[in-house]
């Protein structure tokens, strides 16, 4: 009883998550509690298990142990509350489909088997496209889009889901400066409207500017919390293993 109400206040609650493959431990005993309404970055060196963490949370990657709860309930029951934005590079962009089609895919979870996207879903998709500035490109074949445009489409697809939690894997990788700014503004807007955002991020320099929470990860969770408290040299050193000095440009 006591546990339930305490834990359900967290948007995302990960307990004892452990993943190992190919005889190597990749994620160990991860405890991660993310409160509602934060814009959080997950950082760590290459091979730290950041993508794996995301995939394990979403049930895409098999885990050896651990539980994942969304607002106090098991993840499998709460899929509709979570929107995933995978890494751009995992997809074949020569696939025959348009930007509009990709965004419409975001409505499939809500539709369930056998139903087709109706006017309502199409309008939602168009609105999402507008939001990310891709409406003029809606009928463009995705292979003709630039890296930044592709990333926007992925974001639009997630927006359509109307979820409470967004989980994104390196959304700023390989993206032009304008797109980066556009995306982070959308994310901040989402945060202001009460959404929770978990973002795997590769660029330490921009963290204080973009995010309000951070989680340091390197196979184990090193630290998590508000930027002011957690984003410091000590944690950086623990995570990256060297004397990392970060000047925070205000």
């Amino acid at each position: 009883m006591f546990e339930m109400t305490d834990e359900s206040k967290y948007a995302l609650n990960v307990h004892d998550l452990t993943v190992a493959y190919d005889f190597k431990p990749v994620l160990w005993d991860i405890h991660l509690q993310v409160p509602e309404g934060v814009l959080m970055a997950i950082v760590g060196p290459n091979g730290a298990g950041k993508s794996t963490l995301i995939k394990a949370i979403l049930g895409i990657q098999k885990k050896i142990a651990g539980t994942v709860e969304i607002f106090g309930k098991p993840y499998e029951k709460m899929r509709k509350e979570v929107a995933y934005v995978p890494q751009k590079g995992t997809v074949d962009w020569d696939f025959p489909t348009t930007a509009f089609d990709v965004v419409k895919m975001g409505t499939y979870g809500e539709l369930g088997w056998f139903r087709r996207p109706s006017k309502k879903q199409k309008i939602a998709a168009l609105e999402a496209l507008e939001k990310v500035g891709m409406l003029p490109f809606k009928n463009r074949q995705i292979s003709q889009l630039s890296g930044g445009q592709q990333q926007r489409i992925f974001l639009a697809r997630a927006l359509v889901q109307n979820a409470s939690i967004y989980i994104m894997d390196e959304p700023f990788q390989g993206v032009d400066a304008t797109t980066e700014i556009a995306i982070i503004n959308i994310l901040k807007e989402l945060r202001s409207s009460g959404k929770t955002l978990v973002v795997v991020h590769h660029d330490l320099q921009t963290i204080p500017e973009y995010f309000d929470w951070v989680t340091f990860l390197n196979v184990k969770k090193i630290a998590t919390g508000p930027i002011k408290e957690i984003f410091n040299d000590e944690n950086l050193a623990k995570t990256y293993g060297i004397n990392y000095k970060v000047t925070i440009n205000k």
Partner: protein
Amino acid sequence: MILPQFEIQIVASLVAIACAIIGVFLVLRKMSLISDAISHSILLGIVLGFFITHDLNSPVLILFAALVGVLTVVLVEFIQKTKLVKEDTAIGLVFPALFSIGIILISTNASDIHLDIDAVLLGELAFAPFDRFIVMDYDLGPKSVWIMGGILLIIVVSLFLFYKELKVTTFDPGLSAVLGISPILIHYGLMSISSITIVGAFDAVGAILVVAFIIVPASTAYLITDNLRKMLIYSVAFGVISAILGYWLAFILDASIAGAMTAVLGLIFILVYLIAPKHGFLSNLSLQKRQAKEVKMLTLLLHLNSLNDGIENEEREIKHLYRHFRWTKKQANSILKFAEENGMIEIDKELIFLTNKGKEFSAKAIDYIITNRDDKIEGMKNEFMLFRG
């Protein structure tokens, strides 16, 4: 054993060795299926050569066949460059096209001459001893022996001359450019020699067996080692063994020699697949089970490690295991037993405590996990699969 039987096995062994060597490089370069493609499309070359010479035994046929083999590679790469379709789609389009043209040419123009398509595809080793190489009234043995022998000689010489280049371009193409070795030259050299080998071999053993001899022994070897030299040796060994055993299998069953040799190749592959020490399927299975157990145990230990000493925390309760780790009762019991057996924990009234050994172990494990440095777990590697990496 009578002479023809002996000769058949010699021919087969020569084919096996030649194909095994080429196969190693094709498999490592992920180009195995180009051998399948070439082995089918060279039919066209044979047909064209036949139209020109009207002589089934003319070496022109082999020449044309080899040329078509290289043409196949060129066409496939041309299509791949256009990026209109994916790599393997290109292969799947080119060889049936060339093969079909070959068949159509045969049916329309040469139906009076029996160009036995089945023999072409399936080969007939049984006839090898009868086709002899006669020079000035001296019977020098089956023609196939000379042809395959010649090809094998070319292969071995090329292997010696270009071993370094082949190795670098196969394992580290980027480096090869830096070293001034042209990967393209090596690539086309390999393709040409493969083409010639396939042509020479399939006269004796047919298209399918050539593909089998190229891909299967090399793949089997790859299951055992990733050292190039060893792989070549194993590959050749598997090829020759299959050739000889296969022959006798066909003899006993009175069935197709090519089929029998392929079946033996497959059998050896499956055996190695199942039981190979490091990468075999069965050993993987048992290792995985053991690994899963160890990982769970380590999870438990690390969890305990993070709790404060001596405090009777509800997190120490055995019941906690079910709830938080989502382990079943059976799983939890087996892990607890495992941990106890290894002296890592003590159980006192439903609460679990770390022993000193357990604490030490956890500390070292954490160190290793964070820093990824092998020296942290030196002592533990032998006991625990988990850290063997």
